């Protein structure tokens, strides 16, 4: 076990844990935007930053989702320096995604009323570039159908060559994980659309009840991956 202090509280954490995990386990709230328990830590949004003080008195700001616990470390999750830095991050995010509820809520919590920029710089972009969709597609699903493209202000999540995500299996993981719900999936009749990646899938029809239950491409992918006998997915989960 590792002994450290978070916000003045003595905490015992397991070796290899991150500061964020240790804090959350003890009910200490650190805001995050790009963190997800199912994914590897990424450190893109940086709102989880905390101030750490080493035993020798040196201190610095680190992202708590990436920094492992250390013996004798003293951590502050809401010191003046942390709050000031976090506020700037949120102001910038608010300027980019002024219409998104997650950002607005976080801003309100930190006391940011509106971004300190001229109105022509305020955008209503729906994507906060947390890359959770990209990482879920790569780490959890394992197809890497989408990725981050371009740099700087034109950075975006996109299918290869900004065309069609040919590797997509239509599982909807990106749709589910998106904290701003900016990826749209729609089932119309026997077709599933994911508009952001300009893909469409034919849905499999159940042999017994006739309901459409999953994209054919996804069932083929799972059949191949799990070595299932052909015809395993002829019926839906209710009829099987």
């Amino acid at each position, binding site marked *: 076990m590792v002994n450290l202090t978070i916000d003045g509280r003595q905490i015992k954490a397991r070796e290899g844990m991150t500061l964020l995990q240790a804090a959350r386990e003890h009910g200490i709230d650190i805001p995050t935007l790009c963190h997800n328990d199912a994914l590897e830590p990424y450190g893109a949004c940086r709102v989880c930053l905390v101030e750490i003080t080493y035993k020798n008195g040196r201190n610095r700001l680190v992202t708590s989702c990436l920094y492992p616990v250390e013996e004798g470390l003293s951590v502050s999750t809401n010191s003046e320096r942390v709050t000031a830095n976090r506020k700037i991050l949120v102001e910038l995010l608010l300027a980019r995604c002024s219409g998104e509820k997650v950002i607005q809520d976080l801003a309100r919590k930190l006391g940011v009323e509106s971004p300190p920029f001229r109105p022509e710089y305020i955008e209503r972009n729906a994507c906060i570039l947390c890359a959770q969709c990209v990482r879920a597609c790569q780490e*959890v699903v394992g197809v890497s159908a989408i990725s981050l493209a371009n740099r700087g202000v034109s950075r975006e999540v996109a299918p290869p060559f900004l065309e069609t995500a040919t590797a997509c299996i239509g599982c909807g993981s990106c749709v589910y994980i998106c904290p701003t719900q900016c990826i749209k999936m729609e089932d119309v009749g026997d077709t599933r659309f994911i508009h952001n990646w300009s893909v469409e899938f034919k849905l499999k029809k159940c042999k017994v009840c006739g309901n459409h239950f999953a994209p054919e491409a996804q069932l083929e992918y799972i059949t191949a991956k799990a070595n299932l006998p052909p015809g395993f997915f002829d019926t839906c989960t*209710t009829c099987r």
Partner: protein
Amino acid sequence: MENFAIYVPRLLPQEENLAPGHRACIGCGEVLAVRLVCKALGRRVIVSNATGCMEIVSSPYPTTSWRVPWMHTLFENTAATASGMEAGLKALNRKGKKAITAKVVAMAGDGGTSDIGLQALSGALERGHNFLFVCYDNEAYMNTGIQRSSATPFGASTTTSPAGKLSIGQTSRKKDLTAIVVAHRIPYVATACPSYPFDLINKVEKAAAIQGPAYLQVLSPCPTGWRHPSDLAVRMGRLAVETGVFPLYEVENGKYKLNLDLPKLRPVMDYLKPQGRFRHLPAEEVERIQEQVTADYEELKKKAGVGA
């Protein structure tokens, strides 16, 4: 409702707020629902739990499965206790003792909601307390040995409405509790089922975020009481929804919305057949149930303004 499959469940929170090792029956649909509800609520909650299956299986002295603040109350006063908790939190915050941001959640079975706890629930809803009431509807008093409640559906055989030569089981129809709750004009009412986990989690999150009373009716298949094989609990929930017996819908500020509108309903026989409690039903009674279900579903569709 989006149809998520295989990979999306891996993206759910890993944290379990209802510890395993409780004493629920094999294949219990209710404990599955409780687990998902607790997952969706997170740790900033205070639970007021009525007597019933969930209280018994989760807290045999001196152990407990609850990893969140939890209180056992009587059948009749769950909603009243929750109101008190909410008022207490308000008072503490007003006096500036400590800023506590916790959602108060009341949980009860169908007996604790539609029979014994109804007047306390009605009172709490009417007073507009900021709390969420979750009813785990397994359609009888399962914990004490399958006695009928007002949520038991027509034709079901229970120990106090047994089927025999002169009886076809429960003679009255299931009380439409969601309609009673909707009549209180509260901000959010919904029905859910653990067989549709994402829908359930979505609804819990939505309900917990609302300021004011919210109500969730969760159908919880019960292998012991419904007398179906214990591996079919999830399928029974799906069948209940797909046959139209228990449609999934939500009512936001009085506006109905169907969450799963199937092109065609299954025949109710698909749902009744695997269950021992309906085994005695003759064909004409099944026909009657089918007519009632179809009529109710059409009425619901009209309310939701679908396919009129």
